[in-house]
C-alpha cells in the first residue's frame, strides 16, 4: 500500500487526464459498500478498485454456490461453500494494493434489524440483486442519512440501475459541446478598449492576416450597429449582409483580387455563433430560483453559498450576466495578438471572480461562518463552470413505489410502444412480486418454466391493477422472464459493472453528470433507456 506519489501518478495517468488530481483525491477518500458479491457486484467493484477508491466493504450473508463460481471472475472453485463476501474480497483486494478491502458476513436485512447506522459511514452504497423489500428498507435508511444508494440488477439479458440520491451537485460537468463565452453581443469595457487599439484599414498585410477573428467580428459589428440604429443582424438576410461586409474587408492585391486571409474566413464562418445573445442557461436559472439558493443558512453547502453569490453578482456587477468564463478557442493569429486577447478575457474573469468572492464573504459572515471557509481557488473554479452547473435530484424509492406518487404518466406513455424498455421495468417489478409470494424467482429449474408463466402473469396483472396502469404487456415478455430463470449471465453483469461503476465515480468525485434515475439495458437488442421514475 506504500505506493509513492510518482508511481501512482504513472499508474493512474490515463484516468487523471479525465478527472484530475482533485477527482482522484475524492476517489481515494471514498469508502464504497457493496451488498452481494454476485457477478454483477464484483464486476462493479472491480471497476472501482482498479481506479483506486480508498476502501470497500462487501456485505453478503450467502455462501458461494457452484453457479456463483461459474459466472464470477472473483470467486474460484475453492471458494464454494465459503462465505461469499470473504471469498470475493480476497480476489478483489489482489487487484490493487492501494485499496483497502473489508467484508461483513451478514445479510443486509440482519444489519438493518440490528445496526442500521452501519451504513452511515459509506460514501455510497451499491446494492446488487436485492429483493424489493430489502431495497425499500435500505432506501429509507440511506435517504435519511443522505448516503447515495445505487441499486443494480442483472436479470437474464436485462440490466437495471436505479440511483437514489436526494441532491447531488456538480460543478465540473465537463460538457461535450460547450458554447464559447465571448460576449460579442455585450462587449465589456476592457474588451472595447482592446479593440480600439486595432485599426484594420491601416494595418500591414502580415498583421491584417493574423488578427484574431474575434477582433474582426467585433470591429465590423461596431460598424454595423452604428449603421443600423444599434440593432445587431437578426435574420438570415442580415447575417448574410454582415458576412459580406466582413468579406469586403479582406485585403485585395493590385489587381483587386482578394488575398488569402484565413482569419477572415474564420470570422465569416463564426458569425452565426458569435452573434448568439449571451444568455444564462435555463438550468442555471432554475438553480437560482430554487429554495436552497434563496435561503442560505449555516447548514447550506458550499455549492449553494457560491451559487447564491453568483446570483448576487448577476444582479449587480454582472448586469444580468454570469461571470465571464475567461477562455477563448484557438484561432488563426500571431502569438502576441492571441495572447493579448486571451489576457483581456482572463483578466475580466479574474475581476468577476473577485466580485463573486466578495458576495461569498458577505454570505458566509451573515450565517456566522469564517470568510476563508471557501477558498479563492474553489470560487474561481465555480465561476469558470458557471454555465455548466448541474444539480441532480432523484426521487426516493418510497415515492417511486407509492401508489399516490408513482410516475404513472411516464410509465403509461412509454408503454404506448409495447416494446419500449419500460416493459422490462414492469417485468422486473412483477418478478419482485413473484419472489415475495413464492420465495423464489420464476423458472429457475427447467420444469418450472412452463408452469410459472401463468403464475408470473398473475403477478403482472396484480401489479398493473394496484397502480391502475392501463397498459398491455405482451405474453412473450412474461414467457421470456420465466425463461431467464433469474440467470445472471456474465456479459450482462459486465456491462452493468462498467455502467454502475462510472455512475458511482461521478457521485464520489462530483464530476460529470449522473443519470436520473432509472437505467434499463437490453442486451438482446443492445439498446438502453433512462427514465425518471
Amino acid at each position, binding site marked *: 500500500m506504500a505506493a509513492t506519489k510518482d508511481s501512482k501518478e504513472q499508474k493512474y495517468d490515463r*484516468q487523471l487526464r479525465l478527472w484530475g488530481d482533485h477527482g482522484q483525491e475524492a476517489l481515494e477518500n471514498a469508502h464504497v459498500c457493496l451488498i452481494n458479491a454476485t457477478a454483477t457486484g464484483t464486476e462493479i467493484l472491480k471497476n472501482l478498485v482498479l481506479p483506486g477508491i480508498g476502501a470497500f466493504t462487501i456485505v453478503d450473508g450467502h455462501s458461494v*454456490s*457452484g453457479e456463483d463460481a461459474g459466472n464470477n471472475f472473483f470467486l474460484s*472453485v475453492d471458494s464454494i461453500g465459503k462465505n461469499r463476501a470473504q471469498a470475493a474480497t480476497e480476489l478483489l483486494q489482489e487487484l490493487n494494493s492501494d485499496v483497502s478491502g473489508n467484508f461483513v458476513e451478514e445479510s443486509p436485512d440482519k444489519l438493518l434489524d440490528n445496526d442500521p447506522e452501519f451504513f452511515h459511514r459509506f460514501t455510497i452504497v451499491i446494492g446488487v440483486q436485492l429483493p424489493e423489500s430489502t431495497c425499500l428498507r435500505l432506501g429509507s435508511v440511506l435517504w435519511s442519512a443522505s448516503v447515495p444508494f445505487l441499486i443494480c440488477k442483472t436479470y437474464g439479458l436485462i440490466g437495471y440501475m436505479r440511483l437514489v440520491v436526494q441532491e447531488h451537485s456538480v460543478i465540473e460537468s465537463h460538457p461535450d459541446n460547450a458554447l464559447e463565452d465571448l460576449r460579442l453581443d455585450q462587449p465589456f469595457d476592457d474588451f472595447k478598449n482592446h479593440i480600439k487599439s486595432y485599426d484594420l484599414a491601416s494595418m500591414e498585410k502580415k498583421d491584417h492576416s493574423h488578427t484574431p477573428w474575434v477582433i474582426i467580428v467585433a470591429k465590423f459589428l461596431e460598424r454595423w450597429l452604428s449603421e443600423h440604429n444599434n440593432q445587431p443582424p437578426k435574420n438570415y438576410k442580415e447575417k448574410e449582409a454582415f458576412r459580406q461586409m466582413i468579406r469586403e474587408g479582406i485585403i485585395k492585391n493590385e489587381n483587386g483580387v482578394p488575398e488569402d486571409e484565413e482569419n477572415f474566413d474564420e470570422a465569416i464562418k463564426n458569425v452565426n455563433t458569435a452573434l448568439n445573445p449571451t444568455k444564462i442557461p435555463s438550468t442555471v436559472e432554475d438553480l437560482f430560483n430554487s429554495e436552497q439558493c434563496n435561503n442560505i443558512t449555516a447548514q447550506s453547502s458550499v455549492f449553494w453559498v457560491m451559487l447564491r453569490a453568483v446570483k448576487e453578482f448577476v444582479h449587480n456587477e454582472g448586469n444580468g450576466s454570469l461571470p465571464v468564463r475567461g477562455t477563448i478557442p484557438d*484561432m488563426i493569429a500571431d502569438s502576441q495578438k492571441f495572447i493579448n486577447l486571451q489576457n483581456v478575457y482572463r483578466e475580466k474573469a479574474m475581476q468577476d471572480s473577485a466580485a463573486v468572492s466578495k458576495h461569498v464573504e458577505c454570505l458566509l459572515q451573515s450565517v456566522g461562518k469564517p470568510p476563508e471557509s471557501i477558498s479563492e481557488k474553489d470560487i474561481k473554479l465555480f465561476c469558470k463552470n458557471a454555465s455548466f452547473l448541474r444539480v441532480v435530484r432523484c426521487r426516493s424509492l418510497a415515492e417511486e413505489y407509492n401508489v399516490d406518487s408513482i410516475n404513472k404518466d411516464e410509465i403509461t406513455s412509454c408503454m404506448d410502444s409495447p416494446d419500449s424498455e419500460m416493459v422490462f421495468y414492469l417485468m422486473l417489478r412483477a418478478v419482485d412480486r413473484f419472489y415475495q409470494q413464492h420465495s423464489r424467482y420464476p423458472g429457475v429449474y427447467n420444469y418450472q418454466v412452463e408452469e410459472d408463466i401463468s403464475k408470473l402473469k398473475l403477478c403482472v396483472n396484480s401489479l398493473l391493477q394496484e397502480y391502475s396502469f392501463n397498459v398491455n404487456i405482451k405474453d412473450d415478455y412474461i414467457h421470456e422472464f420465466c425463461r431467464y430463470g433469474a440467470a445472471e449471465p*456474465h456479459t450482462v453483469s459486465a456491462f452493468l459493472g462498467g455502467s454502475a461503476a462510472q455512475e458511482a465515480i461521478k457521485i464520489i468525485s462530483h464530476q460529470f453528470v449522473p443519470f436520473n434515475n432509472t437505467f434499463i439495458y437490453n442486451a438482446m437488442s443492445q439498446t*438502453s433507456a433512462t427514465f425518471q421514475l
Partner: protein
Amino acid sequence: MADAEEPEKKRRRIEDLTEKMAVESGHRDGGWDGRWNHVRKFLERPGPFTHPDFEPSTESLQFLLETCKILVIGAGGLGCELLKNLALSGFRLIHVVDMDTIDVSNLNRQFLFRPKDVGRPKAEVAADFINNRIPGCKVVPHFKKIQDFDESFYRQFHIIVCGLDSIIARRWINGMLISVLSYEDGVLDPSSIIPLIDGGTEGFKGNARVILPGMTACIDCTLELYPPQINFPMCTIASMPRLPEHCIEYARILQWPKEQPFGETSLDGDNPEHIQWVFERSKDRASQFNIPGVTYRLTQGVVKRIIPAVASTNAVIAAACATEVFKIATSAYIPLNNYLVFNDVDGLYTYTFEAERKENCTACSQVPQDLQFPPSAKLQEVLEYLTENASLQMKSPAITTTLEGKNKTLYLQSVKSIEERTRPNLCKTLKELGLSDGQEIAVADVTTPQTVLFKINFTA
C-alpha cells in the same frame, strides 16, 4: 402440506439428476456442479425472442466448450475484458494476439496485469492469468503483430473479436477477412464468412460493431466515421505558437531532430528523460511567447498522443462485444445489426443503428476503383489523393503498374533506396510516366493486406 411438498421435491431431484448427467463431460475438464447454469438457460430452453435458427440443445454448451474457436485481437483495455467475458461464457479455445509489452500506465484498467509484469508481453501474461483463474480455459497467446500471420492462421477461427487501438490495424484485419471470402459464380459462399466484432473506446465514449465481411458494412465502408487526425500547421508551430501544445510540438518536431540531445536516437515517448527534455524546451518556448499551461503531463500527452482511458468504458464495450460473440456462436438471439455507440459523460447514452455498405467501398465492394486525372497531372497529385481522400485515407501508398509487359514501381516510400530512386517520378506527369487512358495501377498500403487496383481515366 406434506403431500404438496413431495411432487416438488421429487421433481427437483429428477431435475438435479438430469443436470448432473449433462455436466459430466464438463467435469472431466475442471468443471463442477452448476458451473454453467447461468449460460445453459440460454442454450437449452426455447424462447420467444431467439434467433429463427436457434434450437435448444445440451450440445450447444459442448460446442462452446470443445469446438468453437475465437480469436481475440489485442490484450489491452478491451482485450483483458474480452478474455474474461468469453471464458466465463463457456468459450475455451481462445487465441489472443498482441505485439505490446506491459506498461505501468496500463494497470489502471488492464486487470490481468500486475506491477511485477511490467515489461512482459501482454498476450502471454493475459493468457496465463485467465488459464489459471478459469479452470479448463485454454487461451493461446501470440506475442506478434497481426500482420505476422497469413490467411491460413485466420481461417481457423469461427469468430474474431478486436480490441485494437489503431484504425490502420482495424482496416488490415478487415481486409484480411474480406480476402478469405470465396465467391462461386459471383455468389458469396456463407461458410467463408468469418464474423468480425470490433470494439473501440476513448475516455467515456465507445462503440461496438458486428461485421459480416462481404455482407454487412465493413470498416472501410464507414471510414468517414473516423475523421483523420488533425495535426497543427507547421507555420503555427514554427513561428506563431498560441497554445502550450504548439510549444511542445515545436520541441518535438523541430528542436529534437536539430539538437539530437541523446545522440542519434529518435524521440521515445516512453523514456522519461526524453519527455523531460521536451518539457524543458517547451517551457522555454512558451515563456518566450507568454503562453501559460505547459505541464509535464500535457507534454507527455502531446508527444505520445495519449488517449485518456478508464476501466468502466472498456468494461461496457467489451461486454457488448462478448454478448455478440455469444449470440453469433450459439444463434441464441439475433445479433446486433450492426453498430452501437456509447457515451456516459452525461447520464448514460446509447445509440444503435445499421451502418450501410458503401457501393464502391475500396475494401469490400469488389468494384474496381476509378480515378479521374488529366494526363498532365503529376504523380504527386495521385499520391495526395490516395492519402487525403476521406474514403481512402491511405498512409504511405506504394504505386506499381505494368508498362510494356513489365511490372514497374512508380513510387514506394517504405524502402529508402527505392524511395530515392522513384522520388523523381512524383514530379513527372502521368503521360510522361507512360500511363495511358484506362491504365490500371496497383496500390499497396499498411491499411490493407491486399493490393487495391485503381483504373486511371484521363480527363480533358
